[in-house]
């Protein structure tokens, strides 16, 4: 999923300060799963903003709405009939959601309430870890399903750096050394041979070669 964290309330308040009618819009997909932008979080943020505006004597109207997905037109369309009633949309979608809504309603001011962070997994309750950079050229098959691009701080393709000690990454001792994981998993599988060849330089053009990427599929168009 795409993970995100809510911005500090002070930053959010500053962005919405010029506006009186505010629609807080959540997203029921990834950011709901990581407890940053779902219906529950929309409610919490809207309540906090209402209490704050009351305390400071401001006359502000704050409404809530959560779309199943903020990055797909069919769901964004639910805003069409209501959007004109507001001065600003405060989006709890990821960066893709915020931009998708903005594209559908180019005249509406939309501001983000979240900092979108990474593609990751829910490791345990309240803990999400980054494990994919969306490089567009997945090589997990060579590396015992541990991504060196994402999980090695230096993104090394050919073995550990000189700093790994007692299974920990030298950059952050809270993080396991990805290469220690790769080597021990491949050893368990009897596939250390996968590490004998030199992996050539990666093709980063698949990640950022020509600016933003797109996927175009004729078979999905009709």
């Amino acid at each position, binding site marked *: 999923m795409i993970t995100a964290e809510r911005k500090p309330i002070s930053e959010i308040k500053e962005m919405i300060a010029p506006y009186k009618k505010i629609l807080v819009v959540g997203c029921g997909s990834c950011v709901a799963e990581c407890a940053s932008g779902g219906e529950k979080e929309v409610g919490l943020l809207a309540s906090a903003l209402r209490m704050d505006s009351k305390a400071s004597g401001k006359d502000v109207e704050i409404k809530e709405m959560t779309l199943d997905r903020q990055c797909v037109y069919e769901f964004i369309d639910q805003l069409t009939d209501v959007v004109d009633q507001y001065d600003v949309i405060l989006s709890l979608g990821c960066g893709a959601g915020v931009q998708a809504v903005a594209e559908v309603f180019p005249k509406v001011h939309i501001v983000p309430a979240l900092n979108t962070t990474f593609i990751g997994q829910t490791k345990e309750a309240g803990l999400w870890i980054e494990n994919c950079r969306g490089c567009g050229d997945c090589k997990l098959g060579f590396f015992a399903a541990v991504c060196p691009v994402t999980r090695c701080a230096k993104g090394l393709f050919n*073995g*550990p750096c000189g700093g790994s000690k007692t299974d920990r990454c030298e950059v952050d001792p809270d993080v396991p*050394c990805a290469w220690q994981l790769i080597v021990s998993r491949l050893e368990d599988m009897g596939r250390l041979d996968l590490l004998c060849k030199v992996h050539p*330089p990666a093709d980063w053009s698949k990640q950022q070669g020509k600016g933003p990427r797109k996927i175009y599929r004729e078979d999905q168009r009709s």
Partner: protein
Amino acid sequence: MMTESRLKKVLQSGNFAVTAECGPPKGADPEVIKSKGKILKDYVDSVNVTDNQTGVVRLCSLAACALLKAEGLDPVLQMVTRDRNRIALQSDVLGASALGIRNILCLSGDHQSFGNQPQAKGVFDIDSIQFVQTVRTMRDAGEVIGGDKLTEPPHLFIGAAANPFADPFKYRAARLATKVDAGAEFIQTQCIYNLDRFKQWMDLVRDSGLDSKVYILGGITPLKSARMAEYMAKNVAGMDVPEEIINRMKSVPAKEQRQEGVKIAVETVQALQAIKGVHGVHIMAIEWEDVVQQIVQEAKLFPRPQV
């Protein structure tokens, strides 16, 4: 006439090589480099110039190498993949060769979060092994990545680093083999304090026949104090300083600890000379370059061979 790498000639002639490290200053003064060069000249075969080590901004390695070259030394250009993409790396490799620099040490580099620019974007477009392979292909096939031909290949003796003390231990020799396959011709190791473990690693290296494929230079860093020994043991990633070395440093009064550190360094150099497959030493006396003369003399490695 084209000059050759002195380091390569010393190693090829079967001599036990001695290299030292020279850290560039945190400023633009060329005299700092020149005076370090003067101290090291005649006592070592070649001088490594570090590339913004620990991620701290310093005078650039390439410029410092050119300054040392002009003073008659044989510089080893250290280059890290942390700060440059493949375009910049290959370009600097060509520039280094054009300036008469004949040795390169290809590294990934200390992570930027350790230095004075922790908000920098780490490049890591390629890793150290891919970098070794790239320089080797540029030199031997006269091609850059992607196959475009060079009008003139770079003339460089190609090195890489190895850490016999980091984990996973058993895999470390396999990783060295990969570096050699990629094209490394000489290896400089992490500082050696744990001789037993280094010997175990060398056993693995010899078992794989790597000692006849690559020149191995053991890393030496003289300890300045017991505190430094303790600090390195606890805080420096990939460093193995055994308790007995720390205790030995502690066993002498503070003002004699530097000399004890030198004694340990000399003993280690001599122990390394006796290990089959070790072809030299690389002395990293950080901001203590003048001690190199003493270590080289006391280890009876002075004068250096004329090659």
